[in-house]
């Protein structure tokens, strides 16, 4: 029975692999079509969000626009979420992913994460002040809202014993937090920056130290990381650090200055 099950699994995995067309050269394809398709967040203010007219704007869409300008092609933004962004890249639905993705060793095996990284952030919990939580250990047994597919959910559950209640997107998780389905929401610390000065969120705070501070990487298909497309993006990111483009965009979108960007900028000068 067990063996048969494994064989079925292998067959299914093989079918999936066969469905993928042979890796085309993305850079050639972009130039030929005149369109660059970038996967970006649409629910992550100010890094990628929808403005009142429905267009996706923010720190990362601006970066995507810069890439398109360098290639003299049109930009098409494709909204992605944490649980589908890597699959979209593998399937060729997007040419490039700039979607607040943390650079982790596991992910490097699945997608081509371009070096150097372009940003860095940590994980924090946006907590209701009344819960009076002062340390991560106090989260034990408490319900914490989160996003489905986030890599740190397991860490917070396993290390600190929190009871993770995960939703599809940030809007659902925030609504659940406001309705008292959980005492706090675990997410990237950069995301809550916008909330701390918002009167709507006056009853909430971010009292804990950020954990797991990790760099953010943009990604291309794994097999193209060392090809022309991966190398082009690597040179682009280096240029962003050197010219201070990233720091300028950080200011434009009112993101508090990140120590990581300053360090990278100083090193590149």
């Amino acid at each position, binding site marked *: 029975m067990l063996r048969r*099950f*494994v064989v*079925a*699994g*292998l067959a*299914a*995995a093989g079918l*999936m692999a066969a469905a993928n067309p042979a890796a085309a050269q993305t850079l050639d394809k972009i130039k030929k079509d005149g369109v660059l398709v970038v996967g970006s967040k649409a629910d992550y203010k100010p890094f990628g969000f929808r403005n009142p007219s429905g267009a996706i704007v923010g720190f990362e869409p601006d970066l995507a626009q810069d890439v398109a300008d360098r290639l003299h092609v049109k930009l098409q933004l494709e909204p992605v979420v*944490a*649980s589908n962004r*890597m*699959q979209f890249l593998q399937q060729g639905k997007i040419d490039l992913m700039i979607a607040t993705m943390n650079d982790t060793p*596991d*992910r490097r*095996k*699945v997608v081509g994460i371009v070096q150097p990284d372009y940003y860095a952030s940590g994980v924090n919990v946006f907590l*209701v002040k*009344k*819960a009076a939580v002062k340390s991560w250990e106090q989260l034990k047994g408490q319900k914490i*809202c989160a996003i*489905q*597919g*986030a*890599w740190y*959910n*397991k860490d917070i559950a*396993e290390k600190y014993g929190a009871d*993770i*209640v*995960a*939703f*599809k997107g940030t809007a*659902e998780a925030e*609504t*659940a937090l406001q*309705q*008292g*389905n959980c*005492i706090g929401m675990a997410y990237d610390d950069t995301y809550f920056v916008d909330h701390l000065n918002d009167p709507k969120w006056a009853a909430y705070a971010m009292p804990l130290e950020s954990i797991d501070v990790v760099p953010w990487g943009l990604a291309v298909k794994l097999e193209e990381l060392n090809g022309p497309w991966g190398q082009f993006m690597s040179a682009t990111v280096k240029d962003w650090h050197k010219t201070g483009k990233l720091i300028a965009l950080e200011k434009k979108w009112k993101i508090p200055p990140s120590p990581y960007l300053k360090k990278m900028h100083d090193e590149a000068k």
Partner: protein
Amino acid sequence: MVDLAPVWDWFRRLHETTGINLTIFYDAFDRARFLNGFLTSLRLMIICLIASVVIGVIGAWLQGSRLALPRWLTQAYIQFFRNTPPLVQLYFFYFALGSYLHTTNAMGLQVPIVSGFAWAVIGLSLYAGAFNVEIFRAGIEAVPKETVEAAEALGYSRLRAYVYVILPLAFRISLPALNNNLVNLIKTTTIAYAIAVPEMLYVANQIWSDELNVPEMMNVLLVIYLALVGVLVFVMGRWERALRVPGYTS
């Protein structure tokens, strides 16, 4: 207690030698949460199956009422739950209705009265129940009028005729259609993941995000749902045969 360590080790070796990564067997944390997800799914399925059949039986009875109000209410219920997507219903229950139903706990925090699991049970039971009402109604209408009149002539009240004469016959006619709807219900329980009920799809989604073993977990899910639906179909098939009245319907 049987020592399962060698089995878990076999799956660890399977990963090392073939790359097939089934953490739900060899990683204690993943194993515990997947088992928990499986049991949550099972609990959700069983409660909803029973509740939806009960709703169907009661609803079909109310639909045949001589009073206009119960008939009208049942009809409104069916139209509402049959004609809206179940995912939308769940979101509506959890986020819209849930926001009005809260209480204050010892810490002074607002907490909801109805949990995500309870909303999933309520939503899915009402959804499948709406279809069951129509399925049972079809069965009831297929019971020959003469049989009902005979029961009335023998002095049965409306309720007693329903319970002892109409329903047993109608139930036999309804079983194949009921089968279909219950299979559908089993599969629909997966949408509870949208309101963070830690059922199997929810847990599998978190595991494949952590371990990046999407194809493996997809296969695990398919095999388990095939098996669960298989069990239901088998049981319902046996029941259908056991209830068969020779010469009456197919």
